[in-house]
């Protein structure tokens, strides 16, 4: 081992997290990125443990794609340290590329390739020898359910199939870390379910997966940790349960009225236990800090004031809605 390598190894050891889970697959510290006047990333800190599935969530333009592109060595950070498997993305981009499979939110395919040729091309580009490619490509096509399309031209595939082909593409060199930027965007429900099943399988194969997605609620069962990003800052990171606890410091109630929803919303805003209130038509959704007792009292009072509730109870919101509502305008002093 050379001196430099030794020093680097020491540095990595020092950086090991105290919980003893080994070297994290992804470490991001103090990451900043500016595009002209626009501050895309103000302060991003993330740690993704090896073998976990990490959900990256935030509204459009929050900085998810930029962060992922930096991890994929496509954009250089202005400030901060970004490491994949302990390797700095700025200093050794080629080594990082060897370890990652990247699927951007928008991608193109070469239409005039056949499915198998397409995978061979990327495999060869990633330095996978022909013999290994011959062995792995049928398996990959099997994994993404495209075996019967192995000789089809790429331009004859449906959008969902292309998406799955792209996923197979980023697996062709057997990377440790998968960076999937909105892998289910633009897919119909059926294709989304298929994509989810594949990701489950990949998780079972021990891959570390960083995934940003609109279907995070659907993925909640398989996502081990979540990072919430807004306006270029990571405002929360932790296990799903942890984040949920934190966000559900109160509960989110839904009140559907036959009429006068506006009046009800105005009234609720003045209530001491009520936090943020959102009205959508005759539906009023609000944060409520009280317990069952207080919730019952609130209903009685509303009825007493002449409101006619059609439904009243805890909101069946999905995880993402909760995040987006909770993070909107909070935690950021821009």
């Amino acid at each position, binding site marked *: 081992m050379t001196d430099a*390598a030794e020093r680097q190894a020491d*540095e990595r050891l020092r*950086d090991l997290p105290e919980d003893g889970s080994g070297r994290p697959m992804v*470490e991001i*510290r*103090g990451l900043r990125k500016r595009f002209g006047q626009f501050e895309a990333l103000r302060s991003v800190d993330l740690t993704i443990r090896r073998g976990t599935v990490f959900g990256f969530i935030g509204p459009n333009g929050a900085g998810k794609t930029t962060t992922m*592109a930096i991890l*994929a*060595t*496509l*954009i*250089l950070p202005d*400030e*901060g*340290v970004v490491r994949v*498997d*302990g*390797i700095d993305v*700025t200093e*050794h*981009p*080629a*080594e990082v*590329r*060897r*370890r*990652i499979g*990247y699927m*951007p939110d*928008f*991608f*193109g*395919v*070469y239409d*005039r*390739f056949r499915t198998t*040729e397409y995978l061979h*091309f*990327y495999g*060869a*580009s*990633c*330095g*996978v*020898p*022909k013999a*290994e490619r011959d062995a792995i490509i049928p398996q990959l096509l099997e994994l993404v359910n495209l075996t019967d399309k192995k000789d089809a031209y790429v331009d004859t595939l449906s959008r969902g199939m292309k998406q799955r082909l*792209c996923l197979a*593409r980023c697996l062709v*060199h*057997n*990377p*440790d870390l998968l960076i999937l930027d909105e892998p289910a965007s633009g897919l119909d429900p059926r294709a989304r379910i298929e994509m989810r099943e594949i990701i489950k399988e990949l998780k079972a194969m021990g891959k570390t997966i960083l995934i940003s997605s609109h279907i995070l609620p659907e993925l909640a069962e398989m996502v081990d940790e979540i990072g919430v990003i807004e306006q270029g800052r990571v405002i929360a990171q932790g296990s799903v349960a942890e984040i949920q606890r934190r966000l559900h410091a109160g509960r989110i109630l839904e009140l559907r009225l036959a009429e006068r929803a506006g009046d009800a919303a105005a009234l609720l805003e003045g209530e001491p236990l009520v936090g943020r209130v959102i009205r959508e038509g005759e539906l009023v959704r609000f944060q409520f800090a009280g317990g069952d007792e207080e919730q019952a009292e609130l209903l009685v009072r509303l009825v007493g004031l002449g409101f006619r509730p059609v439904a009243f109870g805890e909101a069946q919101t999905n995880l993402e809605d909760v995040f987006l509502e909770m993070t909107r305008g909070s935690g950021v002093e821009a």
Partner: protein
Amino acid sequence: MNGPSAPKRMPPEFGAKLINPVLGKEFTLRMRTPRSMWALLFYLAAIGVLAFGLLFIFRLDYGLGMSVFEPERSRMLFLFISVAQLGLIAFMTPGLTAGVISGERERQTLNLLLVTQQSSTGIILSKLVSSLAFMTLLVISTLPVFSIVFLYGGISPGQVATVFAFYLFTMLAFGSFGVLFSTLMRRTMLSVIASYGLTLILYGGTAFLYVVLGLMVERLTAGQLNPPAYYGWTGFLMGLNPAAALVSIFVPDLSDQVFRIGMAGRQIGAPIRLWQEYFIVYTVLAVIAILLSIRHIRPVPRRKGNQPKI
């Protein structure tokens, strides 16, 4: 540098060294589109019409029914066809190279390529070589047309080979400019416009400037009893002009003429042959263009030192 789970690095198989995956992909995909066939057809049609047109014009000069062996005329014909083909190449090169990188960017396939193990050099050179290969195919397919001049004599196969070598060099140089624009500019449209603009300047602009500046220099020296005994610097402009450089290979006088000041200027010879200047200048420019393309296809790291260590 290899971590515990880094994929094994295998020795690349034979052949992968010769044709890298990007080059293989370019070759395969280019030949799978009918566009290439049409390009070939139109190119041959254009050069055919030009050649036969010129042939017709030159034959008229001979007079009807006359068949005299006149190598000088036949050489003229050859020169005309050669310059005509150079014009077609000038027209075609930007079209074939100005979209190679920006096109991938617009089709959203560039990032997928950039996250592979392919080096920036490999990607740029493969793109350039594949475009050049197609242009070479077009040019070589015109050989039968060129061979017509052999019927009239006066031209050696070596001269034809020289012209083709000149074409190859010109395609390489202008092709690298196209690739550079394609790398630096986000949109293919802008890159194509810039490439054609540069081509126009180097073909037409240099000749125009040479004429205008030549006249101005001539005016300055007019009236002097002894014409200046130095060559005119405006001649260097013509060395940048591909057509002039090509002609100067076959008409050695040309270099001397363009460096002469005024019509009455004393002939003291050219400091450099036009084609020599052309070769030197364009080699340097092409190398610079290729190096810049390689540097800019991926984000350029800034100087180190401002990054906090964790």
